[in-house]
């Protein structure tokens, strides 16, 4: 992520007159600088051996947090800076290739279907 054009690093010190009038955000598409990944209690993990590349997860992800490269789900699948762990991808995956894993735990081989 490149640095935002609109520097808000000192926003907590701004006086009333320093804010853009009417709470306007004078830069487009800067919501990506707001990292929502910290909200997650479970993270999605994809099993590439099971995945059929149907791209359904990419379509349904409400946070655009699933990466695609060359029209395929990327190896580095999840943008964990923005994935909130909602589990929609895991729920919608027609072949159960995505598992939700509690944060702080590793996926243990063989426990997936348990």
């Amino acid at each position, binding site marked *: 992520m490149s640095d935002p054009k609109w520097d808000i690093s000192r926003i907590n010190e*701004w*006086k*009333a007159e320093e*804010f853009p*009038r*009417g*709470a*306007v955000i*004078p830069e487009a598409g800067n919501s990506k600088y707001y990292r929502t990944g910290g909200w997650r209690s479970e993270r999605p993990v994809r099993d590439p051996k099971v995945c059929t590349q149907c791209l359904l997860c990419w379509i349904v992800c409400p946070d655009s947090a699933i990466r695609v490269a060359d029209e395929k789900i990327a190896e580095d699948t999840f943008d964990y800076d923005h994935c909130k762990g909602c589990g929609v991808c895991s729920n919608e995956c027609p072949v159960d290739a995505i598992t939700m894993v509690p944060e702080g735990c590793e996926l243990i081989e063989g426990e997936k279907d348990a």
Partner: protein
Amino acid sequence: MPEQKTIAATGNIFVAEAMRQCAPDVMAAYPITPQTTIVEEYAKYVAQGKVHTEYVTVESEHSAMSACVGASAAGARVMTATSSQGLALMWEVLHIASGMRLPIIMANANRALSAPINIHCDHSDVMGARDTGWLILFAETAQEAYDNTIMACRIAEDPDVLLPVMTCLDGFITTHSIDRGQTIDDATVAAFVGERKPEYALLDTANPVAHGSFAGLGGPFFEFKRSQRDAIDRSKSVVERVGKEWSEIVGRPFGLIETWGLEDADVAVVVIGSSAGNARHVARQLRAEGGTKAGVVKIRCFRPFPSRELAAALKGMKAVAVLDRAESFGAEGGPLFLETRSALYDLEIRVPVVDYVYGLGGADVKLELMRQMYADLSDIASGAAAPEGLRYLGAR
């Protein structure tokens, strides 16, 4: 001075004409009652191809003001009109328009709010909206409604202000009675109001922005309200400056307040809107009869409220009456009384102030009622105790 045309028309037609001359890009309006004939007249201009305005008919006043907010954020010059229940239905969006700092101009025909059902003049609608962050101008006559509309356009869009402005005229008394007044040529108005130059326009795709963002969870909501307060405070001098410029063009005076006969008056009346004429008329009669020397103060600009100007005008009066055409149920008095008495608090010598609620729901404002009020003032000026609490002037 450019030549002016004298016409006879209703207050609503004067306002519609002023709006046409200000050339709004968008007008969004709910076309059914309690709507005014302002937008009906304007719709005619659209049908006749006299204006370039995008005229949006919506399904409610809530939607009308919402459409105005969207169009104004897009960068358009936006105008609309409403009245009574219509203004009430716009409520939450009125706050959004001012909070987003959108210079929307709206005419309001002052009319009563239900219940009981009533369609006639009083100031209940606009007084309920007095804390929504809009600037509020009042007209006594169709002429003032015309002038206020054109001035409102400049005031709202002034870079030091950028707030919505409501221009009010008394329902039926001013909106529907045919009055004589002067209009000026289109080119003079166009030059006076200029073009809107929005800084954050949604349609400016080269400089994309987002409007309507969130400022909660410890965010700067408080700071945004403070800057809104600073803007409406700054607007006072802008209203005065624009009023002065317009007076120089048309030769009609404009002030935040307008005073009559105060120079040698012992008592005074503070009034808003069409009843100012009755107040002056009776004051003149009393003077001719050798009676009370009374002055009249008319409020042209209610928000921002001209506290200092009012205090300076009423200093030294032996008694002051406030005429409130709206209630503030449960409060010490009506809205204008609360503002007026607060404005006079810092005077070294206390001025007795009496509140009269009058004319609710179009109740007649008869000259004998005015006389009764002046008689009370005269008694107080001669040493009688000022009555406690508000009085309902003429109510049975």
